[in-house]
């Protein structure tokens, strides 16, 4: 009969980390960052030019997703250490705001996004129609993906 002491304590399994050199390398030359920015910018410009609901746009979104997945699970970069704990009051502020946004969006979605209560998507899509603005949004999305991989 197992006693309390024999029951292994549940522990959060850490994500498997390989012993890899620091990646991206510390003190990388600014030219490297600039080059990465140019590549991402060019990709954002190309993807921003694809028509919605097209195979090109779908593939254009799938590729960064695949790259991020490969990096996150196969070749993880040096991650920014997460906090050990968060203040519950501070987290609750975020939770309230996010819940309010989702509730506002869900109420619109439930009604079929009518013109008198449009969804966030229907409000943002017209703003993303200009090629330059959509490209900037794609660029920010790519940067966010890189930021999340490092978390």
């Amino acid at each position, binding site marked *: 009969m197992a006693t309390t002491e024999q029951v292994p304590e549940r522990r959060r399994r850490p994500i498997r980390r390989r012993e890899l050199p620091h990646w991206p390398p510390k003190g990388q030359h600014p030219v490297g960052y600039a080059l990465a920015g140019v590549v991402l910018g060019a990709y954002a410009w190309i993807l*921003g030019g694809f028509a919605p609901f097209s195979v090109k746009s779908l593939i*254009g*979104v799938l590729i960064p997703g695949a790259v*991020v997945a490969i990096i996150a699970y196969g070749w993880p970069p040096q991650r920014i250490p997460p906090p050990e704990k968060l203040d519950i009051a501070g987290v609750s502020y975020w939770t309230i*705001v996010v819940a309010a946004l989702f509730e506002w969006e869900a109420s619109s979605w439930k009604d079929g996004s009518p013109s008198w209560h*449009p969804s966030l998507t229907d409000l943002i899509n017209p703003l993303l129609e200009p090629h330059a603005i959509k490209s900037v949004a794609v660029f920010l999305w790519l940067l966010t993906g890189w930021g999340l991989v490092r978390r």
Partner: protein
Amino acid sequence: MTMRIITIVGFVLAIGAMFVLEYLGRRPDSKVPTVGQWFGYLMRPRIGRLLVLLGWWWLGWHYFAR
């Protein structure tokens, strides 16, 4: 004020509040976490990491492929 305007104001307020919280979180000794700290905490377990990255990808698909 039409209902459409009220809807837009609601979204602006919610998104604006996120920027305010991010600003507050970046002050010294703040109890409010930044969005990066929050995501970092959520992404500690493998499932949290997977869900957050999936959410990021879904946003891209939703706005740029549809």
